[in-house]
C-alpha cells in the first residue's frame, strides 16, 4: 500500500507544523497555486509505521552479507553517524562566518591531510559530491592543465574497455572524445593497443587499479610511461581503492589525479543510492586547478580558499561546500582506524577475497583469472552452469536472495560471460564467507535437480521478479488519484 492510500482528508499532524495559519498575505493571486498537490494526510503514527515497514523490505549491510563487486559494502560504524549528527554540526548555516565553523573545518582539514597521505598526492579537495563528480573534477583539471599550457590539440581520453561506465560518460561531459582500448587475456591493459592509441591528441588515460576484473595492473609503470611520454596525464578511478589502501599509493604509481569514493573506502553509508563523497587528490602540477573550496590552515585558524587564492581553479561544483555530513563520517572512520587500521583494510579485504576465491575454485566454480591473485574482488563465471542447466548468473543471483545473501554484482564487467563480481570486504568473518560458499553450492545442486525452483527465484522476498519491460513500456513514474 502506498502512503497516499493511507491518506484521509482533513487528517493533520498539529505537532509537526507551526501554529500559524496557512494563508499568505501580500502575494498577488496570479502567483498563487490554485490546485492541491498530492501530499498524504496521515497521522504521525501512520507515517512512522509506513516507512518503518517499508525499510524492512530492504536488504542492507546491517541485515545481510552484501558482496557487491566494485561497491565495497563494508560495515558502516554507527559512531560515524552519531558523531556527524552532533547538533552543532547540523545547525550551522553554510554561509555563516567561518569563525562559527572552526570545529567542522578542522575535521575537514585533517581529513584532507589523511587522504593526501594514503594516496600519495600533493593536494586534496573534498568537494565533489560523489564518485562521478570526482571523475568530472579530475578530467576537468586535466583539461584546464593542458589549456593553461596552450596545449589545445588534445581531444581524446583513453579508457580501457573494462572501465566503469562513468569513465567514458565523464570524458564526454568534459568535452572529450573517448578512445577505448582492449584488455588482454590476463586481465591487463593491452600495451600494444595503448601505444597505438596514444599520441599528440591524448589528453589522458583513465584507469582503475586494481581493475574491474579484480586484478592488479602489473604493467602500471610501463603504462604511465607511455601516457606521460605522449604528454597525457593519468587519472586514477578510486572505485577500487579499498584493495590497496595502506599498501600502494596511487601517487607512487605515477597518477596525476585521483578520486576517492569515501562511501566505499571510508565506510560512509550508501543510503540506498547516496549521498556519496568523491574527494579528489592531485599531483603537484595540478594543484592550481583543484575544485573550490579547499580548506586551509593559517595560524591555527581554518578557512576556505576561494577564487582569489586559486584563480585557475576549475570552479565550484556545488552551491556550498559538498557533502559535509558525509565527510565528517569519513573523518571519524579514519580516526578510529588510525595508521595501523588503514594498512589492515587492504590486507584483510584481500585475504577475504582470495579465501573466498580459493574456496569457490575448490568447489568447482569457474574463476575468471585463476592464475592471478584476487585483489579485493574477483570474478566467477556461471557460463558452464548455464551451458549445462540453462541457469544463468541472474538466476543464481536471485536464488541467493532466498538464501539470505545479497547477490554479487552481475553482468559487469561485460568482458566475462555470465559473471558474478564478488567483493566480500574486510569486515566479514570467515563463517559468513563459508556460509556464502555453501549457499552457492546448494544453488548449483538445485540448478541440476530442480532448475524451475532457481529460475522462479526469489520466492521469499516482498516481490517476485519484476516485469522490467512493462515498467519501461508503460511508464508509471508517479501515482495518480484513481479517477
Amino acid at each position, binding site marked *: 500500500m502506498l502512503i497516499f492510500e493511507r491518506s484521509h482528508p482533513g487528517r493533520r499532524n498539529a505537532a509537526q507544523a507551526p501554529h500559524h495559519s496557512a494563508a499568505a498575505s501580500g502575494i498577488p493571486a496570479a502567483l498563487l497555486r490554485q490546485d492541491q*498537490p498530492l501530499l498524504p494526510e496521515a497521522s504521525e503514527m501512520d507515517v512512522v509505521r509506513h516507512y518503518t515497514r517499508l525499510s524492512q523490505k*530492504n536488504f542492507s549491510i546491517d541485515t545481510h552479507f552484501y558482496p557487491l563487486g566494485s561497491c565495497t559494502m563494508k560495515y558502516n560504524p554507527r559512531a560515524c553517524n552519531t558523531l556527524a549528527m552532533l547538533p552543532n554540526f547540523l545547525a550551522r548555516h553554510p554561509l555563516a562566518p567561518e569563525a562559527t565553523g572552526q570545529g567542522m573545518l578542522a575535521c575537514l582539514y585533517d581529513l584532507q591531510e589523511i587522504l593526501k*597521505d594514503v594516496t600519495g598526492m600533493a593536494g586534496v579537495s573534498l568537494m565533489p559530491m560523489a564518485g562521478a563528480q570526482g571523475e568530472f573534477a579530475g578530467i576537468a583539471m586535466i583539461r584546464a592543465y593542458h589549456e593553461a599550457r596552450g596545449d589545445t590539440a588534445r581531444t581524446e581520453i583513453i579508457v580501457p574497455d573494462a572501465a566503469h561506465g562513468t569513465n567514458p560518460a565523464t570524458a564526454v561531459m568534459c568535452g572529450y572524445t573517448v578512445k577505448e582500448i582492449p584488455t588482454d587475456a590476463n586481465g591487463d591493459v593491452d600495451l600494444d593497443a595503448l601505444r597505438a592509441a596514444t599520441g599528440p591528441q591524448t589528453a589522458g588515460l583513465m584507469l582503475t587499479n586494481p581493475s574491474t576484473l579484480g586484478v592488479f595492473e602489473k604493467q602500471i609503470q610501463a603504462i604511465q610511461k607511455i601516457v606521460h611520454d605522449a604528454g597525457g596525464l593519468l587519472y586514477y578511478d578510486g572505485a577500487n581503492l579499498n584493495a590497496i589502501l595502506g599498501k600502494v599509493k596511487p601517487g607512487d604509481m605515477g597518477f596525476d589525479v585521483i578520486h576517492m569514493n569515501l562511501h566505499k573506502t571510508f565506510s560512509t553509508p550508501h543510503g540506498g543510492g547516496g549521498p556519496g563523497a568523491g574527494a579528489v587528490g592531485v599531483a603537484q602540477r595540478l594543484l592550481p586547478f583543484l575544485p573550490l573550496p579547499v580548506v586551509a590552515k593559517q595560524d591555527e585558524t581554518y578557512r576556505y580558499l576561494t577564487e582569489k587564492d586559486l584563480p585557475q581553479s576549475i570552479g565550484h561544483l556545488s552551491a556550498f561546500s559538498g557533502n559535509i555530513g558525509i565527510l565528517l563520517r569519513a573523518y571519524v572512520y579514519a580516526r578510529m582506524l588510525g595508521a595501523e587500521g588503514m594498512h*589492515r583494510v587492504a590486507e584483510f579485504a584481500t585475504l577475504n577475497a582470495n579465501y573466498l576465491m580459493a574456496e569457490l575454485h575448490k568447489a568447482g566454480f569457474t574463476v575468471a583469472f585463476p592464475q592471478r591473485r584476487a585483489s579485493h574482488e574477483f570474478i566467477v563465471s556461471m557460463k558452464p552452469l548455464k551451458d549445462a542447466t540453462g541457469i544463468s548468473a541472474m538466476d543464481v543471483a536471485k536464488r541467493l536472495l532466498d538464501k539470505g545473501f545479497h547477490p554479487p554484482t552481475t553482468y559487469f564487467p561485460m568482458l566475462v560471460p555470465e559473471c558474478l563480481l564478488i567483493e566480500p570486504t574486510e569486515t566479514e568473518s570467515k563463517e559468513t564467507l563459508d556460509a556464502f560458499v555453501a549457499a552457492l553450492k546448494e544453488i548449483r545442486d538445485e540448478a541440476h535437480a530442480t532448475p524451475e525452483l532457481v529460475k522462479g527465484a526469489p520466492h521469499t522476498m516482498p516481490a517476485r521478479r*519484476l516485469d522490467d519491460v512493462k515498467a519501461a513500456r508503460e511508464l508509471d513514474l*508517479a501515482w495518480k488519484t484513481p479517477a
Partner: protein
Amino acid sequence: MPFIPHTEQDIQSMLASIGAKNIDALFDEIPAALKSGKLTAIGDGLNEMQVTRLMRERAAQDSQPLNFIGAGAYEHHIPAAVWDIATRGEYYTAYTPYQAEASQGTLQTLYEYQTMIASLTGMDASNASLYDGASALAEAILMAVRAHKTSRRVLLPATVSPLYRSVARSIVKLQNIELVEIPFDIATGTTDLAALQQHAGSDIAALVIPQPNFFGALEDVDALTAWAHAQGALAIALVNPLTLALLKAPGQWAEKGADIAVGDGQPLGAPLSSGGPYFGFMCCKQALVRQMPGRIIGRTVDLDGKQGFTLTLQAREQHIRRAKATSNICSNQGLMVTAATIHMALLGMDGLRRAAAASHTNTQALTVQASGMQGVKRLFSAPHFHEVVLHLPESSAKVLESMAGQGISGGYDLQPHYPQLGNAILVCATETKTSEDLQRYVAALRHALH
C-alpha cells in the same frame, strides 16, 4: 582490530586454504618498488570513547548564532521521526536498488517521493535525485540543450543565485554551451523583460526562470515562460519546493507550463549542516523523460501480477550507455530523498503550507520592523516570499560583523556579487523565528548601526 573480525586462527586457516605463506604474499603481484611505507599523517587509532570526545570538542567550537541567512539553504523545523527512520540501518546501509526484489523498501519510498515532488512542481515525472540544486541546474541546462538540438545558448538571469550560476558555468562550459546573463530591473529586483526582449528572434535553447529569485522576489513567471516558448526555447523553472505549497506550480506557468523544474530539496528535511548533504530534484514533462539524467523508479508488476517497483529507463544511464549516456551521474542523494519523503508525509499539505506561510509572514514582519529604522530600507518593490533585500546606511560587511558579535547571523552580504546594489544584505526569517527573535534582530541591527 577495528571492524575486522578475524581471529589469529581464522587468518591461519584462510591462508592455508589459499596456499599463501602470509598476508603479504597476497600482494606479490604488485611491483616491490610501488609498495608504500608507513603512513605519517595519521595518528594511532582512537577507540569510540576517544573519538567521541574529540568530535564533541570539535562540535563545541562551532557556535550557534541566531540565524537569519537563507540564500539557498533554509532553517526549518524537521520532525524528530524524519531522521530517526531515515537512519534505520535498512535505509542507511542499503546500496542502490539494483536488485529490485530485495530493495522494495527503498524503491517504493523513491516512487512516493517522485509522486510528491512531481505533484508539487506540477510536472509529469521526476527522477530519484541529483546532487544539489546548483548541479541540478547545470544538468537541466545540459538536458535542455540536448532536447533543443539546434541551439547551445541558454539565458541565465542575474536573479539566479550567483553560487548556482558559478556551478552551472563550471559544469556546462566544457561542452561549449553559452550562458547569457540577463540583467534585472533595479527597481523591482526581478528579471528585466525589456533586456530579455533584446534576445527575441535569436536561437535560444532555454531560459532559466527562478521563483522566488535569489533576492526572494517573485518573478512574473507566466510572462517569462510564455516568452521562452514564443522563442522556441525551453523554460527551466528553478524553484524552492517548500514555497510551492503556496506558489503556482511550474507545470501551470503560462499556457504550456515549464518544461523542466529543478531546485534544491534541502527545505524538505535536510539539516543545514554547513552546506550538505542536501539533494537536487529534477522534474520534467513526459515528452522529455528520456532526456532526463539520473535514476528513475517505475511501478510495474511481478511474476504474480502484484504491484512492485523497479529502476527503469536505465538505457539513459552511464552503466548501460557509457559515452552516450545523458550524464555521468551514478550515486545520487538517496538517503536525503528518503528523509524528504518522510518529512513531506509527516507535514502533509497543511503542514507544508503553514511552514511556508509562517516563513513568509515572519520575513514580512522583520522587513517592516527593520525598515522602520533610520537609513534602512527594503530595496526592491516586487512582492517577496521569505527573503528580502535590505539596504543599509553603512558598510554591510561591518554591520554583519557587529551583529555576529552579538550572536546573530544577520544576513548574506550581497556586496561581493552585486556591487551595484551598494550595502545590501539578503535576510530570511523562517517559521523557526519567534517574535522575540525578530526583536533581537532589530535590536542587534540598531546597535550595529550606531
